[in-house]
């Protein structure tokens, strides 16, 4: 079923299998979550993913739940689906590594620099400007929030 799932995602599924697969997705919570993960990986690869503090944890859980593949997959009737399954193994492995790397670089870390006392000189200008631009009733409303203005 996962191979068909991959085929659907890759727009290479046979027409007669589409209805069966969609019905299975609706009924089966496991299939729904698998579909969700595929879409998340796709979004991360495209740079469209808009953040979740639990992303790396969810990816690691998904990897843990995957069975270890020792032998090759059994022969399927359709060669296109078989080739597609290999493609998805590579793609999935690559995207998981990519997502973990991205998370390691970008995501909030438990061990960051030690917090320092807030002082006026270190007050982030973009925060003050964003506050005034959205709340001020005085001439502070004219504050520059644009990155285009230097």
């Amino acid at each position, binding site marked *: 079923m996962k191979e068909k799932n991959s085929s659907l995602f890759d727009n290479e599924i046979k027409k007669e299998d589409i209805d069966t697969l969609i019905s299975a997705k609706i009924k089966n919570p496991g299939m729904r979550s698998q579909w969700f993960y595929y879409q998340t990986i796709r979004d991360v690869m495209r740079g469209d993913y808009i953040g979740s503090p639990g992303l790396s944890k969810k990816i690691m859980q998904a990897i843990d739940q995957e069975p270890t593949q020792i032998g090759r997959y059994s022969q399927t009737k359709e060669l296109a689906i078989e080739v597609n399954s290999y493609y998805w193994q590579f793609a999935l492995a690559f995207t998981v590594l990519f997502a973990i790397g991205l998370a390691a670089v970008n995501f909030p870390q438990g061990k960051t*620099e030690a917090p320092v006392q807030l002082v006026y000189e270190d007050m982030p200008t973009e925060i003050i400007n964003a506050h005034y631009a*959205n709340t001020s009733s005085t001439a502070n409303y004219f504050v520059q929030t644009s990155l285009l*203005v230097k």
Partner: protein
Amino acid sequence: MKCLGLLLFLLCLATPFAYADQAGWSVIEDAYKASQNKNYKGIYISQHGQELKSVEITHALHGNEQFTRINLLDGNADEIFSQGDTVVIYHKRDNTIVVQKREQQHLFPAIFPKDINSIKKYYLLSFGKPDRVAGRITQNIVLTPKDDLRYSYHFWLDQQTSLPMKMIVQNLKKEVLEQSAFNKIQFVSSMGLDWFKPAVDLSKEYLMDEGFSKEINLNRFWRASNIPPGFKEVNFIASKMPGINMMSYHTVYSDGLSYISLFLQPVRKGQKPKTGDLNFDATNVAARYYNGYQIMAVGAVPLKAVRNLIDSVDF
């Protein structure tokens, strides 16, 4: 009897303001309507902390739609054009003019919200003495907070039109934090719209600033359990942080007069998160570092209000 009379006289001297009954609140509603419906052009001085700026404002109600043009007369010649709910600001610099869309605001003198229930619940309204502002007779009113989570607001409302002519914000020590006051204003019964167009300067490059702050409807992963009483969320902005695939969040709360911004930003590697409190001008800032996020609250409210808010953020 003489003693009783003397006591009443002394009480009157000791209480220069008379607190309003329920009907008295109509002055706020009238001031709101005046700021929406009246046609006027004037110049007011706006002071925030040590900074003082002159501002020219033209406002007209045309059909059912409001048109406002606000020009900064000191420093950069920035302009604001507001039509209905659409606000556009023109930042004018040496060689460029950056055009940016903004959220609707309660800029002086249109600072009162349509719904004043929160103001009625969390402020006491009292009436002071009539006074002259910009050559016009005004009625002084004071909104005093019932708790220590907001500042007091003094207004001078035009007796003829109800438009706010002057506003002062005071802290709990009665120090003036910010003020705006007309020094010149002219009301007209009707007004054309020939003034409602920006001064185009073809020698400058015009840049549209559209991508800096992107509003996205997202489910928030955090919860603030101690929002000051009477404050409600009035705005929420989620922006993609430049250079990384992470979002920062800006939520604005208001009780109708005071505003608090709550910021949540992921801390990047190598960035030192901030903690503690800060005060400058009328603004208090409280900062906290939690679970990889820099949490900050900023507002023209007492420090207690912003501190309580950020300490209650959890996820």
